[in-house]
């Protein structure tokens, strides 16, 4: 009897999880389906779900019109570069906050997070002027630095949470054995925090990949990543939904695949320390 109840609950929970999962995934699924429709089918009322004449025409048009490879390469460089750079800076910062906290550590952590609450457009002009001054407009380097700075509070916070789970005694033992500060961080702390660092890397890579304000405002033709590629297919005067969907699918596919293969790490990373 008890087993029946447990089984029933499991079935209900599984069904509910699938339903919620599908609901969240539906917009992406709809985008992918629309990318295989003609423009007329894309706006059909009632909407066409699976039974339409599937076509690859939109992908051919997008491929012909845009240099997808260049946008993709820029996205990889900007998202990858900003994430790695952020991790290099955040590991020592998180170490000091987790293992040698001062009276003001909590305040500093909160202050760092509060910078995320500032609307980006509020600092657009100052940053734009700095970029002009340093010749960084439309450069991969400039965007890498900006995105790193934007995501740095999140990286520090995530790493700080993971580091707090590691017993400080292990680091003390390493110090007793004569490990220098850099060796302690590099050879003792980092290997133990690999799962946390990996999930931080992944999450920030995704955040940087999807960032659309700075990547649109600080680029022109050379350093534009996939967000600009998508923006080039959006139009308030003309129905190009099928082409826009094809461009969107091409832009999200790499990150979708990466997320699919690393979902275990991501979930572990995001729920780490949530239950004690």
């Amino acid at each position: 009897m008890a087993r029946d109840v447990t089984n029933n609950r499991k079935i209900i929970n599984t069904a509910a999880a699938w339903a919620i999962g599908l609901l969240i995934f539906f917009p992406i699924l709809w985008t992918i389906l629309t990318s295989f429709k003609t423009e007329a089918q894309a706006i059909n009322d009632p909407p066409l779900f699976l039974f339409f004449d599937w076509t690859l025409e939109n992908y051919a048009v997008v491929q012909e019109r845009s240099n997808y490879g260049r946008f993709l390469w820029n996205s990889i460089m900007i998202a990858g570069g900003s994430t790695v750079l952020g991790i290099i800076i955040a590991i020592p910062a998180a170490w000091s906050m987790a293992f040698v906290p001062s009276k003001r550590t909590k305040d500093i952590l909160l202050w760092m997070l509060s910078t995320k609450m500032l609307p980006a457009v509020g600092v657009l002009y100052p940053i734009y002027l700095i970029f002009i001054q340093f010749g960084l407009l439309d450069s991969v380097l400039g965007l890498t630095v900006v995105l790193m700075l934007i995501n740095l509070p999140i990286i520090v916070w995530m790493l700080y949470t993971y580091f707090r789970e590691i017993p400080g005694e292990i680091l003390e033992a390493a110090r007793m054995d004569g490990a220098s500060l850099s060796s302690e961080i590099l050879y003792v702390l980092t290997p133990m925090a690999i799962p946390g660092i990996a999930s931080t890397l992944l999450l920030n890579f995704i955040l940087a990949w999807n960032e659309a304000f700075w990547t649109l405002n600080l680029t022109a033709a050379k350093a534009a990543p996939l967000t600009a590629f998508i923006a080039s297919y959006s139009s308030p005067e003309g129905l190009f939904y099928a082409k826009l969907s094809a461009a969107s699918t091409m832009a999200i596919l790499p990150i979708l695949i990466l997320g699919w293969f690393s979902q275990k790490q991501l979930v572990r990373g995001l729920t780490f320390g949530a239950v004690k």
Partner: protein
Amino acid sequence: MSLKKVLGVTTALSMLAVTGALAETLTIATVNNGDMIRMQKYTDDFTKKTGHDVEWVTLEENVLRQRVTTDITTRGGAFDIMTIGMYETPIWGKNGWLVPLNGLSAEYDVDDILPAMSGGLSYDGTLYAAPFYGESSMVMYRADLMKKAGMDMPEAPTWDFIRKAAAAMTDRANEINGICLRGKAGWGEGGAFITAMSNSFGARWFDEDWNAQFDTDEWANTLNFYKGMMEESGPPGYATNGFNENLSLFQQGKCGMWIDATVAASFVTNPNDSTVADKVGFALAPDNGLGKRSNWLWAWALAIPSGTQKEDAAKQFIEWATSKGYIELVAENEGWANVPPGARKSLYDNPNYKDVPFAKMTLDSILSADPNDSTVKPSPYVGIQFAAIPEFAGIATEVSQEFSAAYAGQQTVEEALEKAQAITDEAMEAAGYK
């Protein structure tokens, strides 16, 4: 190697070096619409003729506006050519942010540009942007439904006729709405439509002293008429419909009439996308007998930001893209219905173009719009669906949000107008107009 050969090789190398030194790569910011995308396809023709390469930055209209405004106000120099409209051109020209388009070649024939276009793209008599294509607004209607309703669309209808026809064509059971109009918030969306409509009702944004005029009967009549008609005969949720939503409805046969940009004519008559392609008729935008119609005027134009290092090459590109030769190039490859409309007089004299069904009405609509005299009562601003002052975009966006809230029933028309009056007066005072 003989002397002759040495000389020959040296000359060839020098010529290559000279060509290489002169060849530039132009970065052009543009908007994503059919005509602009088509232009990108033919860039090779320009490169072949001049040796200059082109790199395109195509963006959605609102993103483009923000992007080029940031760049030009900071003198960022990210672009050599910018695609801008009639709103930005006189303001930027006045500020000295654009290169005057003087000294264009005789072959370019600058006098061939339609006066309404060159007037709207000039400041103090100097042309600052060359129109790539121009548009006005007009009535697009279903001739079959009009006939079924027992009515005949005049070439120049009144608002009363439009309202009556809309009610007669509405067939809720078959999901046919008599009329589809923009209601979406945004100065370039519903804001543009209602401003152009208000001109025909005798309203204006400002009096001669820059006082807001939303507390006048003319504005109340405009909004009450619009809302009343849309509730009788408009589609559900019209308060959030913009150009694309109405285009989609019209193409699916769910609108009896649609008053919007003339550029939409090529979409609704394209049998690949429209289910009613062969049933569409055109008429001038309606009026109220006060001497002003409710059509607007707009152009997407190419301009050179001051400070670019590639001014000469940029001018060459603009001459190429807005020339008679470019129109012929497109016509030759894609047919006359696909050439960029509304910019040159000669296009409308061309017998081949006269066969295009919407050509005459587009020209008539453009010719009937005058940005320098758009209101019944005198006004201090230039522009039909906008006032060409820098503050307008911000104010009109807020005002149109209030109007949309009234259409959606979240507040009354009176409340919306009161708020619009307060918003506008406050902003104009803060900007130092009063």
